[in-house]
């Protein structure tokens, strides 16, 4: 049952991605509405699948790569729906849904076996740390999408050939402001995730920092977003540079998340 719900969610996200790409080339009001509807249905199924798994496993289902990636996508979609309802940003879905779909697809390809929770994870830190981390990540994922949209729109304006998506993309100012807002949301969550992670590590292994590659990458990510925020406050860095940095920041998250898993082992063996 949980698997079926998950697969259905994946299917709906896939359909939404396809409509989103069509929307880029030949957008009408209908395509935008159909896409939103598909995302909403997919999200409902996805939510159900997570709840189902929670009940089946008896713990918060963020304990292995499959669950974590699925939860990551879930947070991203949730944030997308909130943004969509609040700001109605044209074409945002076309830029975000492919990313969600790729995340979900990688989640689908990872082992879905439900195992008893390893002792280290049997701690209330586990829930707090992971939820903070993924809410932060979702905000950064969204900032990544917005950043790409900014660069596209900026290219149209600088090249002086505004055509294609130009009319339907939002203004640079609103993209920049939403990007900034997302980072100000993501940053405290990332900070909290790092702090709770350190406290948890101290409890579990005795020591806040263990030189685990993921810890190092998390700090690098933190540093990048800290630079974005700091430079904006101090010298008014905004626009293109902020957009580029929010793209780079998200890429480091992806490296931290997937890359390290592929490279080798650390303390984060669970994810």
């Amino acid at each position: 049952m949980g698997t079926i719900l998950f697969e259905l969610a994946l299917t709906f996200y896939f359909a939404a991605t396809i409509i989103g790409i069509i929307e880029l080339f030949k957008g009408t009001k209908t395509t935008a509405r159909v896409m939103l509807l598909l995302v909403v249905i997919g999200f409902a199924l996805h939510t159900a699948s997570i709840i189902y798994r929670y009940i089946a496993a008896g713990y918060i289902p963020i304990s292995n790569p499959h669950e974590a990636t699925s939860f990551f996508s879930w947070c991203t979609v949730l944030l997308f729906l909130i943004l969509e309802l609040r700001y109605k940003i044209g074409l945002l879905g076309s830029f975000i849904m492919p990313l969600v779909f790729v995340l979900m697809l990688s989640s689908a390809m990872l082992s879905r076996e439900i195992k008893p929770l390893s002792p280290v994870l049997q701690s209330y830190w586990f829930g707090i740390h992971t939820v903070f981390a993924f809410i932060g990540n979702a905000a950064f994922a969204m900032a990544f999408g917005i950043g790409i949209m900014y660069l596209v729109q900026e290219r149209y304006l600088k090249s002086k050939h505004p055509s294609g998506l130009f009319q339907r993309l939002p203004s640079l100012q609103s993209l920049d402001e939403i990007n900034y807002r997302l980072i100000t949301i993501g940053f405290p969550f990332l900070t909290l995730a790092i702090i709770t992670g350190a406290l948890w590590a101290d409890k579990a292994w005795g020591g806040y920092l263990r030189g685990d590659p993921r810890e190092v990458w998390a700090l690098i990510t933190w540093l990048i977003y800290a630079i974005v925020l700091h430079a904006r406050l101090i010298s008014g860095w905004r626009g293109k540079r902020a957009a580029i940095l929010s793209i780079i920041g998200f890429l480091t998250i992806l490296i931290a998340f997937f890359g390290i898993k592929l490279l080798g082992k650390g303390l984060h063996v669970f994810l």
Partner: protein
Amino acid sequence: MNIFVVGLNHKTADVDVREKLAFNGPKLEEGLTRIKTLPEVKEAVILSTCNRVEMYTNVKDPAKAYESIKDFLSEFHGIERNSLETALYTHENADAVKHIFRVAASLDSMVVGEPQILGQLKDAFEFSLQKKATGVLLNKLMKKAISVAKRIRTDTKIAENAVSISFAAVELAKKIFDDLPTKTVMLLGAGEMAELAAKHLVNNGVTEVLVANRTFETGCNLAKEFNGKAVRFEDFVHEMVRTDIVICSTGASKYVLIKEQMHHVMKERRHKPVFIIDISVPRNIDPEINNIDNVYLYDVDDLQGVVDVNRQGRQKEAEKAEGIIAEEVETFQRWQSSLDAVPTIVALREKADLIKKEELERLLNKLPPLGEKERKDIEYMANAIINKLIHPPTIALKEDSEDKDILIATLKRLYGLNEKEK
């Protein structure tokens, strides 16, 4: 019952003629009352904008109506009848409907696709409605025109592209900035095109206008026009720190702003985006400035490029829009012809006959078998009842009365005769 349009627009009349014929302020109310009291005119809407003055009417005889409207116009505005004739055009019925739809959809505008005309048309209609100058026909027509215009706006991309330089400037500004009302525009030098662009920006919400002119006096006068503030020309680079949009047309022979200065300005304004429009020929602003982050510099050729691309796109969209209009004109005509008396009388009779037939059948089935004579008598009575009932409305509809269209519409509603419309 004929829909009849008399009017003039930017294609048929120069601005001084249009000005003279405009119905602005109190003239509109007076004009509307006067035109409504012309014996030929049953309903009227007056649309008066800077590019057109048009009267939409419901008249009995268009030729006669045209003469009396001309008389009225020449007397009301104090213009000779002859000079009117060259400027005025007329449309009747299907043509008139098509014309009004095209005006509403901004296909007849100087700048095709510009959005103001629909609002102006709505206002004109509402004013007539308030003054009770419209009836069944024009009410339906104007509402339809508004919905057709909206349909065209959503179904085609006609309103998306700006096709004049100053519109293009506004369009670009809207894609750089989110909230024009909080932005400041600076006019550097003066010139017709620059002023027009500034005017469009102000129409789109920009509230703060600065004017920097080499002659401070001229700058002051221009600033007054925009409710703005004049600044010394020597200070303009300094003023750019708080300016978001610069429109430059100074007529200088060399650059008045170079890259180093702009770098400094950007630092001072903490890299907030700047949109610079350089309308001057030769250019007054170093084109290199466009390479600075968050600075968007457009010269006349760039703007013209945007306009050209938009024009091509718009041509295609206009064709689509014309298709929609043809379709909608047909729908409207079908409705209008349903307002004729004859089909309504036929429909009323058919309905009565049907009721009679059903009721007779029911009665005859219930009663014990009757003789031929009794049956004939009952049928005769039923016929007599329906005939007497529908006789007076039939006569009323056949009479040539003032409010026939209202009668027809009312009758159709009361008897539920509308369902038969295809």
